[in-house]
Every structure is written in structure tokens, then in C-alpha cells.
């Protein structure tokens, strides 16, 4: 009788665990999708569409023992380029005749937190498998991530069935309206990527070259040391990282706190005011990205993220200064 009871309890716990998390197969698809983008060689053109706006970008990605190298070229308008080599990013601005060299702020320190992020995402989204469709002449499996509340957007992702590369991504609001969509119109996966294709197309003339310093990474959970208190956060959003660094142009100190529920994320930027500047006061948006800005104790406070306007506003209004007046 005791064994039977234990068996029933164990099965119940297993069932509850399974039902409270994502569909197992959907979760595996999600994991494979994340892997593919890093490990595959691919050369393709993807489009971004919101409303009646369309932009095309070519992306060439190579992965080998030296790591990743990636080359992006804007195919519409000015041929802007980005070349990324591991955590170094070089932006080429033909129209401004400038080149920017940046390090990804958190470099290699950040990924260690991704395990927790990936796990936590399934608590705040219902992951499920959708239809099987063709995207860019490839057969894909649709993956649907439905949020549990209206403080985050939902996603529909189309993943290539054979190599697991993400071929289309739709972001949807709480009424299932598509806010924006990204999709490959063509892509070749797995071929050799030549050295030439990873080099900049534009040849150098008189260019301004700027370089930003690497940020000083502060490991997660130093909240109690901050002079800023975030009183309200949507359920499931935790501090995933925090950093201080200097702004490239004027050396102003900027604190960035990144919060994520595993899929959606927003950043809080706190920038010391060094001279008279203007700043966002209230809300603004660009596509599905929302921002909320205010000024507090001689600091610019800005919340930016791929979350609804109500989220950045509520977070922004809950920030309190706890330093010495």
C-alpha cells in the first residue's frame, strides 16, 4: 500500500511538473534552435517587416575552431556593414564615414547565466509546437511561445526541421497581432564560407575610427550595493547582469541593469548628467521596442526593452534613488 501511494505521488509530481512547464518537444526544438545559430555556417538574406516597411540584410556566418565570424550587409539604402568576431563588433558607416569598434559589453562573462534564463522562460510562456510550414524553401516547425500576462510579448518561431536554424520570427501582442516579423527569404546552410566574404566590401578612405572601452562587469545580484532601487518588476523578470562603463563620446559613467524572464528582456540605463543635455521624458517606441525615460537626481534614467509600453513605464516609475541627497 505504501509503495502504491509513493508511486501515485511520484506520478502526480511528474505530471504536474510536465504540465507546468513547456511542452517537452517544443522545449527541445527551442534548445536546438539556439545551438544552430552558433554552430552552423550560413549565408542568407533576411527581411524585417513592420507595417509597410521592409528592409533586407545579408548575413554571412562562419563557425570554426577559432570561434565565430559574422558579416552583415544592409542591402537597402546605404551599404552599411557589421563585422563581428567573437565578442568584438566593428560597425562601418559609409554615410558618416566612420568606423566603430566595440566589445560586446559583457563579453564572455554573460553566457554563464543563460542556463537559468532558458529554464525560467518556460515558467512564463507556454511553449508549444505549431504547424509545419515552408519558409525560404525550407521545411520548418513552428514554435509558439504564449506569455502568461500582458507585461511581455508572445513569439512565433519557425525552425528549420533538419538543421534547426531559426528562419522566421514573429513577435505578437496580447491580441495576437503581429508587431513585427523577421524572415529569411533565402539561405544556404552548411557550406564553406570564404575569407573574402567576411571582409568589408567598402574600401577605406578618410574615416573616423572610434573605439569604446570594455565595460566593467559586475556580477549579478549586487542590488543591495546600488543606490537605485527597482520597486516593481513583472513576475519572472530577474536581474541577469549589471555593468558600469564609460560612454565612448564623453566618458560619462553609465550603469546598465538587464532584466529578463528568459525570452523577453529590458535594460535600465542610469547615466550621470555631465552637462546640459536633453533626455526622453515619458514613453517612446520603435517597432516593438519601448522606452521610458525620466530624470532623477542628476541622472538620466531610461528603460528600454522588447516588452510592452506598460512594462517599461511601470518599471521606470518604480525606480527610486537611495543615495545621499
Amino acid at each position, binding site marked *: 500500500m505504501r509503495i502504491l501511494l509513493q508511486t501515485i505521488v511520484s506520478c502526480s509530481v511528474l505530471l504536474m511538473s510536465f504540465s507546468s512547464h513547456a511542452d517537452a518537444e517544443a522545449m527541445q526544438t527551442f534548445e536546438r534552435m539556439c545551438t544552430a545559430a*552558433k*554552430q552552423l555556417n550560413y549565408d542568407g538574406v*533576411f527581411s524585417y517587416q513592420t507595417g509597410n516597411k521592409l528592409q533586407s540584410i545579408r548575413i554571412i556566418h562562419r*563557425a570554426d575552431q577559432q570561434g565565430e565570424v559574422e558579416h552583415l550587409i544592409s542591402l537597402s539604402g546605404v551599404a552599411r556593414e557589421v563585422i563581428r568576431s567573437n565578442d568584438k563588433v566593428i560597425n562601418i558607416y559609409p554615410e558618416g564615414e566612420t568606423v566603430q569598434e566595440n566589445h560586446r559589453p559583457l563579453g564572455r562573462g554573460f553566457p554563464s547565466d543563460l542556463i537559468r534564463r532558458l529554464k525560467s522562460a518556460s515558467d512564463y510562456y507556454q511553449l508549444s509546437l505549431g504547424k509545419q510550414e515552408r519558409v525560404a524553401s525550407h521545411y520548418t516547425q513552428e514554435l509558439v511561445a504564449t506569455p502568461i500576462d500582458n507585461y511581455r510579448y508572445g513569439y512565433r518561431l519557425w525552425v528549420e526541421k533538419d538543421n534547426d536554424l531559426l528562419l522566421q520570427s514573429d513577435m505578437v501582442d496580447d491580441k495576437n497581432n503581429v508587431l513585427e516579423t523577421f524572415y529569411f527569404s533565402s539561405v544556404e546552410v552548411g557550406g564553406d564560407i570564404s575569407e573574402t566574404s567576411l571582409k568589408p566590401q567598402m574600401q577605406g578612405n578618410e574615416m573616423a575610427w572610434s573605439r569604446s572601452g570594455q565595460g566593467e562587469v559586475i556580477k549579478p545580484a549586487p542590488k543591495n550595493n546600488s543606490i537605485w532601487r527597482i520597486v516593481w518588476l513583472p513576475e519572472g523578470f530577474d536581474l541577469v547582469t549589471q555593468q558600469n562603463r564609460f560612454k565612448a563620446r564623453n566618458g560619462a559613467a553609465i550603469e546598465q541593469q538587464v532584466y529578463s524572464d528568459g525570452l523577453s528582456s529590458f535594460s535600465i540605463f542610469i547615466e550621470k548628467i555631465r552637462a546640459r*543635455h536633453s533626455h*526622453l521624458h515619458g514613453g517612446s517606441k520603435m517597432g*516593438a521596442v519601448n522606452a521610458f525615460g525620466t530624470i532623477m537626481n542628476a541622472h538620466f534614467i531610461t528603460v528600454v526593452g522588447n516588452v510592452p509600453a506598460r512594462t517599461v513605464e511601470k518599471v521606470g516609475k518604480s525606480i527610486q534613488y537611495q543615495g545621499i541627497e
Partner: protein
Amino acid sequence: MTVNQNELLSALVDGELTGRELDDALHLLDTNEQARMQLQRYQRGSDVMHEHGLAHHQIDLTGRISAVIEDEETYSSITEANKNTAQIIAFPKQFWKQAASLAVAASIGALAVVGVMTQPQNQLVPTAQMASVEVETTPMVVAQTGKRWTVQEQEVEERLNNYLVDHNEYAGASGVFSYARVVSYDMGQ
């Protein structure tokens, strides 16, 4: 320029002023040309100290970029065995998976912002509010079209774009394409 005024400007550059002192410094800059020149000198000095100077060079772009890339340390765990295959891997290694997506998002983001930051500023439609540091209670009108940050002052838009670039370093797995949203502004404007 008095010693106190110089100290005030120096503290302003160092971001140490708040409240009344900040107001005094801003008023000084408003009313004193010499103070504005002195502030520029302090800022240049600060930039040099922090190695944030922007230098103009006659450069071989291709060569220099190649050199920068080659100089980059590598940290990939990718091996020949898994080079062209996507597999489910054990959880302790999962961070590599999302790191890939984040990296792509970062690059796309950088590309996107290039487009926005170089747009002309004379096509903006005012719909939102802005405030300057000095006159926080008298908001300026800015635009909000949903296609891009639309503000009347370029420095504000640039700041938002820089924030967006930094933020997109951490946009999750579905953020593979997230930065490309910004690029769309370039079309049809």
C-alpha cells in the same frame, strides 16, 4: 573665471554635481562663453584620460579591420565534430546555444543602429514628450511613429540607439533578428 567656477566645471565634467550646484554650473554655461570654452577643455582632458578620443586617420580600412579581427582572442568550444550540425547538448553546456543567438542579435543590432543614427533629423512628426535637464518641467514635443525613435534632438535619439545596441546584446533567443527592426526606417523615408 574664478577658481570656484573652474572647480564647478571640473566637477560637472566628472559628473559629481547634483541639485543647486548643477543648476549653478548650467547657469554659468548659459551666461559665460569663457566657461563654455573651459568646459570643452575639461571634457577633452577627461576624454584623453579615459581614452575616449575620436581620432581621424587616413586608414586602410580592410587591413585594419582584418588586423582587429585577427587580434581577437577566441573562446569557442566548437569542434570539427559538431561544426555543421545542430544537436541537443547537455544542460551544463547550454549557455553556448543562446550565446549564439545573442551574438547574432548584437551584430544585427549594430547594423541596425548604423542606419538610424545617420538619418536626417528633419522629417520628424512630434507626438511624444521630452524634457531637458535644465527645464524638466517644460517638456519638448517629440515624435513617436512606431518605426523608430523619433525625437527632435539628435543627441537624444543617439542615446536611445546606443542604449538599444547595448540592450540587444541580451535580447533572448528569439532576438536573433531583433535589431533589424531599426533598419526598417531607412526604407521609404
